[in-house]
């Protein structure tokens, strides 16, 4: 399985770089940084192993044909995209996961809606999201009001169009 193995290896290298960077100092704009870290490190290692003859003896177990190498790169990037899509759930408390955890803790007795309301505050949910949106350049403050930036408008447009295609109402 050289192609699959190589793809997984490239992804793991990107993941290791990400963990080391985050442990040393977590970046402010995590969304852009995590994309750059994975794309940068995976592409760099792939290019180095593909082009530098010095490594050829060491990597004889990896795919040698260009199509195999390309497929490994694609697999590594696909794995990276999957991880990046999951990352927000790691960084922020997912309310759905937290709800299920709180309900599970009470076992057969269950948890009432009122008790669940008390476990969530606007500060930890809405306020925290707005702070992050400001740091990621999706939203800006103007006096007392919050306004979408061009980037924020693009995000809203994509989801508005997609939900219109699905025929779904506003989520959240």
């Amino acid at each position, binding site marked *: 399985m050289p192609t*699959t193995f190589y793809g997984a290896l490239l992804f793991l290298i990107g993941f290791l770089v990400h963990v080391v960077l985050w*442990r040393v100092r977590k970046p402010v704009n995590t969304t852009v940084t995590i994309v750059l870290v994975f794309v940068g490190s995976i592409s760099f290692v792939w290019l180095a192993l593909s082009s530098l003859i010095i490594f050829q003896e060491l990597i004889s177990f990896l795919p040698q044909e260009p199509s195999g190498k390309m497929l490994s790169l694609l697999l590594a990037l696909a794995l990276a995209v999957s991880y990046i899509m*999951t990352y927000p759930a790691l960084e922020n408390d997912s309310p759905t996961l937290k709800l299920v955890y709180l309900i599970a803790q009470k076992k057969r007795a269950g948890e009432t809606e009122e008790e669940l309301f008390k476990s969530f505050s606007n500060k930890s949910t809405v306020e925290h999201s707005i702070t992050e949106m400001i740091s990621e350049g999706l939203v800006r403050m103007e006096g007392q009001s919050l306004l979408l930036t061009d980037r924020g408008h693009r995000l809203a447009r994509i989801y508005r169009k*997609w939900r219109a295609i*699905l025929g779904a109402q506003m989520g959240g």
Partner: protein
Amino acid sequence: MEMVNVLVVVALSVTTGVLVQVYVYRNNINRTVAGSIIIGFGVGCIPLIGIGYWLSEQIPIDRLVAVILIYLCAGYSFFHANNMGETSRRVRISLELANAPEGLTYKKILNRYNSDIQVTRRLARLLESGDIERSGAAFCLKKRRILAMYYVVYLFRHLVFGSMAH
């Protein structure tokens, strides 16, 4: 040429999956985002397996496994992107702000979207998907799949941030 074939297989399967999901959701066959995606994903496997079987005579099995994994990743990423439209707080706040060109104060945002609304909407979705059930005034866990996801996320969080307090 081999790479083109491989890319066509993945693109065709993903496109089939997306179209089926839209059809299933729009026509109320399954009105949950997760459910409609799972159906779309399953149907998308049909061209993947069909063309994959045909390609198996032309390309090594190792590369076919890579193609299947790429399709799985595409399906998983699509599920997350779609789910963000349904559950993401950022997307919801962005849509609220997009509907107010003059902007919104924090108080006005809270009038439209607050933690109580978040809890109510999520409880409704969890009830609809059968993950929890009502027992009198209380909610009880019915399926453990989201709890399993909670522990996976917990482990990864520990691995990436070193501690839960990040």
